[in-house]
């Protein structure tokens, strides 16, 4: 494992120094890479590690974003604090959903559907709530400063985003090597068998849901203070939920580095296809190409790209890698 840590440290060093050489535009790309990597990692905790697929995670981003923003507007509360309150709000809602889902024994596609239903109902309600701006959405004032979590240049966002990603990696790694992680994986591989040896499925699934939603919501505040406009259709939609899950799935579900690799691949891919193929008279071409790339990447890397990399590099890593239990990303979901 020492070799992996060395590699990671090197990567971190590079990412820390990189901004010196990057334009605002490229910094902005990295901001989105980190943002989606973090979201993917938070989602991964629930789906990748316990196998309960959520297609409604945008709901939590929305709750986080709206909570901190409304608190900032009405009480002048710093978004740094509002962020955590938003996280708690998201956890609360997610636990309600989890309770309903797990008490009623919803699994697999049924669980997916209830996450979708919750997210859509949440979006529709948000569209009608006055404090959330109803259909107008919320316009956020631009008052740059650390207290307001807003900045002129992309550099602070870059480092904060990087911080979020490192934070999520640490959280996931800690979970992985702890008993919690082993319970999660046991539930993913075979929930009934796990229960029969005494793992309380309900308790651990709820924990996963809670942690995942809390972390996801934090990113909502980041988004709100980067884009300055919130609207349920942008921040609580099904389309956004799908964006969240794309990167960890392609990168490698249930793996530590999957979401990161996925994000470093997909976000630039989308950007490149947009800047090269979005030409007049061919509107939509870049999305068609993006769609093909998605299909091809799954067909070529059915276990995620991380699994492929591991296979290729395993002769090098085999001597030092011992923790293979949760790093395989295998599972029937």
């Amino acid at each position, binding site marked *: 494992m020492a070799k992996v840590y060395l590699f990671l440290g090197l990567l971190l060093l590079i990412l820390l120094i990189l901004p010196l050489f990057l*334009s*605002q*535009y*490229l910094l*902005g*790309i990295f901001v*989105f890479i980190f943002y989606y990597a973090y979201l993917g990692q938070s989602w991964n905790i629930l789906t990748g590690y316990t196998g309960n697929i959520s297609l409604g995670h945008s709901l939590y981003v929305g709750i986080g974003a709206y909570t901190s923003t409304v608190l900032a507007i009405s009480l002048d509360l710093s978004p740094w604090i509002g962020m955590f309150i938003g996280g708690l709000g998201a956890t609360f809602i997610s636990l309600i959903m989890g309770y309903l889902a797990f008490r009623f024994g919803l699994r697999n596609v049924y669980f997916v559907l209830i996450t979708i239903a919750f997210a859509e109902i949440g979006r529709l309600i948000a*569209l009608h709530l006055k404090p959330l701006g*109803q*259909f*107008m*959405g919320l*316009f956020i*004032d*631009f008052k*740059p400063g650390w207290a307001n979590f807003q*900045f*002129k*240049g*992309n550099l602070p966002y870059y480092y904060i985003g990087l911080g979020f990603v490192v934070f999520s990696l640490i959280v996931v790694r800690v979970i992985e090597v702890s008993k919690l992680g082993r319970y999660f994986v046991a539930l993913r591989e075979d929930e009934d068998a796990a229960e029969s040896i005494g793992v309380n499925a309900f308790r651990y699934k709820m924990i996963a849901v809670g942690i995942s939603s809390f972390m996801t919501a934090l990113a909502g505040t980041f*988004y709100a203070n*980067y*884009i*300055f*406009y919130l*609207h349920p259709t*942008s921040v609580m939609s099904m389309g956004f939920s799908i964006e969240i899950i794309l990167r960890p799935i392609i990168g490698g579900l249930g793996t530590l580095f999957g979401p990161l690799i996925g994000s470093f691949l997909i976000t630039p891919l989308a*950007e490149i296809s*947009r*800047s090269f193929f*979005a*030409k*007049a008279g061919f*509107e*939509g071409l*870049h*999305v068609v190409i993006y769609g093909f790339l998605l299909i091809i990447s799954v067909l070529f890397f059915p276990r995620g790209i991380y699994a492929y990399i591991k296979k290729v590099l395993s002769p090098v890593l085999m001597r030092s890698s011992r923790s293979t239990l949760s790093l395989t990303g295998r599972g029937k979901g």
Partner: protein
Amino acid sequence: MEKTMNRRIFLKYSAATGVTAAVSGFPAILRSQPKEILIGSIQPATGVIADLGIADRRANQLAVDDINARGGIKSLGGAKLKLLLGDCEAKEEVGRSEAERLIKEGAVCLTGPFLSGVAIAMGTLCEARGVPFVIDVAAADAVTQRGFKYTFRCFTTQSILIKNIGDFLDTIVKEKKVAMKRIAVTNAGDLFGRAQGKAFVDYVKAKKLSFDAEIVEHIEYPLGVQDLSAEVAKIKAAKPDILCPVARSGDAKLLVRELYKQRVELMGIIGPGSPGWYEPEFIRDMGPLADYVMDNAPWPNPKSPRFKEINERFAKLYPGKYLDGNSGYGYLAVMVIADALERAKSTKPEALVEALRTMNYRQDIMVGGAVQFTANGDNRGANTAFMQVLKGEVKVVLPKEFAQADYIFPTPPLWKR
């Protein structure tokens, strides 16, 4: 004596040029006269309003081509404009990212983006980067209420839209001596639809109309609805005198078909400030049912020979299409940017912002006055026209000085045509 004088002057002059050349590292003359000025156009070219986004983009491009054909920006040595294209995909984060990209590629000014949400995201970015942002189309009042120095908006604000429909309705009641007591309003569930619907309903409820009127029904339906039979049944049950729908061309067609099928009796269909009713697809697909529909919207000036000429070329390039209130402003915005460049004699942001601040661009292609920006960036000259579809053509009927025809009201029922 003369020789010495000349030589002294010559030396002074060459020294000055030499210094400038040394500082800029390049022959000074070439540096101050860019061959090409880059402008960024970010529109929603894919996604749910791709048709409107693409139309705006085409108008932006046509204006750029026209300016170049006339010799480019003369005060900058005839530099040609080049339009860099961005697609915000109707999403704020993509809008911001595209803006960042075009700025990096050298755009000295941005235009777009049709959607108010994206306008906010881009506006904030342009403020942070110090790049002028001349919005061609975006209606929400809030867009220019952020206190931004770099954001300017050519389009009308929602307040103007609503005030004008109120005035137009007052005019109809007075001139045709009718009573329009019962008003039904519908709108789609998107941001513009709901904002517009609500603003109009509030206006009527606040008794701002000069005649007695009440809102008997206000229906909102989800954007992308496929079936309006239930909604129209409700409208019919409310027995309104007029229907004021804010609709896109898709739901406009659904609405009219249902009104026809359910035999809903109305004095007229009057859009309070709505897309859809003037779009060529609506008129083409609805045939005689499209006639007599009225709408209040920003619109090109039909009496302007200049506009007619531009529109002819647009129609030739894109058969079946014509410049409307939105794409017309797409064209105008680029003219405004070109004028700013011309007067600023520079591509530097501060100079451009100053030129925009003091803008007084006399134009007659859109209904309204000269383009002048208020302190917060709104266009004082932006205005709307009241139109009616007559015999398959959109005709301006009010205000009188822009009118192409007289309006017909009350209108004949849909099923008797």
